[in-house]
């Protein structure tokens, strides 16, 4: 199994969620993160002092899927989340050795 971790823009969350629904992916965990990369920060002034905000708010998705689905999921996210502007985000694929569904104790692919 794989964990697909995607860092995307806030405004793309709903779209990505819907696109994943269409390929029958429902289990998703979402968190608020901040990030930097190619995208530069910006400066503000507060009471005359400069404040550099170099971390931009982003959304992180974590989706664990069976090995064979990972490619599809990555593709769907990449396409839906793209705007073409700097700051679109990254997708990482990470190996997962075991999955357990807490409610039933089921393991592996059936637990996803």
């Amino acid at each position, binding site marked *: 199994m794989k964990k697909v971790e995607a860092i995307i823009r806030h405004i793309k969350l709903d779209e990505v969620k819907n696109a994943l629904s269409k390929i029958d992916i429902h289990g998703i965990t979402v968190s608020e993160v901040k990030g930097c990369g190619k995208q530069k920060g910006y400066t*503000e*002034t*507060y*009471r*005359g*002092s*400069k*404040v550099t905000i170099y971390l931009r708010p982003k959304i992180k998705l974590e989706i664990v899927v069976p090995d064979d689905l990972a490619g599809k999921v990555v593709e769907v996210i990449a396409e839906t989340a793209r705007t073409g502007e700097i700051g679109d985000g990254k997708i990482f694929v990470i190996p997962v050795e075991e999955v357990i569904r807490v409610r039933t104790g089921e393991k592996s692919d059936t637990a996803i």
Partner: protein
Amino acid sequence: MFKLKKILTVLLLVIIISILLIGIAYAGDPTGAQMDGKSAFDALYAGKSVKEAVGLNAIAINFVWVFLAAVLVFFMQAGFALVETGFCRARNATHVIMTNFMIFAIGALAYWAIGFGLMFGGASGVASLGGLKPLTGLFEIVKGWGIFGTKGFFLVGGAYDVGVFIMFLFQMVFMDTTATIPTGGMAERWKFSAFCIYGIFVSAFLYPIFGNWVWGGGWLAKLGVNLGLGNGYIDWAGSSVIHAVGGITALAGAIVLGPRIGKFNKDGTPNALPGHHIPMAILGTIILAFGWFGFNAGSTLAGTDLRIAVIAVNTMLAAAAGAISAMLFVWKKFGKPDPSMAANGMLGGLVGITAPAAFVNAPSAVIIGLIAGVLCVQSVLFVERVLKVDDPVGAVSVHGACGIWGVVSLGIFADGTYGAGYNGVQTTVKGLLYGGSSQFIAQLIENEKS
């Protein structure tokens, strides 16, 4: 949904009944035209002459007036609390508001026990409140040069008197604003117990003594009578007594405590530590402006003194002017308007107009406010960049710098339409622009001291 239906039924009933009731003939007195003035007179002023009753009505008007002003000023505690809390970082919010809250309680008891007596123990003679006859004890080193008062402690004995109590009510909330100001400059850093000691000291001694000199009949007030300097040192509602004292205390405190960790880089350049809740700070600013109407206009201690209209309008105009000039100045200088500076600017304007509020006309009030707004911003930058002092809410600038400006501006702009009899001098108060150079000198004396 079962209960909702019941509620709807009840409501329907109310509507139907209401509609039926609209038509009912009225038998009461829906405009007050049938009010019986004579019975009211007999009930409220039994055995008094008409003339006496008129005087008592006037006193009642003034009591209501002072009460109104006092509660408005009291509410400024909330304003200070919100401004200071909003401008601090989230993790210190509870501590900051706790100091703002407790300072009122501490100050109230200390002022009741000691401060009020020191400040106003010799202030008898306020005709609008019935004379304050019991407050007859001014301690003077030389005849005419009073230092502190000696009556009214604990509000007992002769001071158990409605006139004294209404005076206390107003003066006590006034005092508490002074005590609150430095909490802003020292915010996020001091220990709670140190803060308690500070609170007792300011409210029982520091403020009352200086206050006595200016308002309690002490020596600064007598510069006019004794040395012929205009009407003596004048500070209408406390640009100096309240604000400059508060601001300078804040400065001293901020220096002693040192800056917050991370405020200054090793090379001395300041970092911004943005306030965590700007809407909270703005709400606080509006509450302060709201209370300031009571602060300035209430200082007549008389609703029968119609000058209150001018004072209130001046206060409002200077506040608006301060906010605007601060906002535009920042906009021009840094390319973007900064809400926290605009809020400081309004407070600066208010502080500035506090001394001259009663003595100037509307265009002067606007100019005083405009200058205060810019002064306030410049002072914030100066305190941070040159003095390298960390003043999270701008207390030093808003209250200190603009407070001094307020006292000076009185010496410049007072237009001679008001103030006959003030501090025992029979002429009206005139500033430089209107030919009153001696008043200007009296005003400068305080700044020397600071």
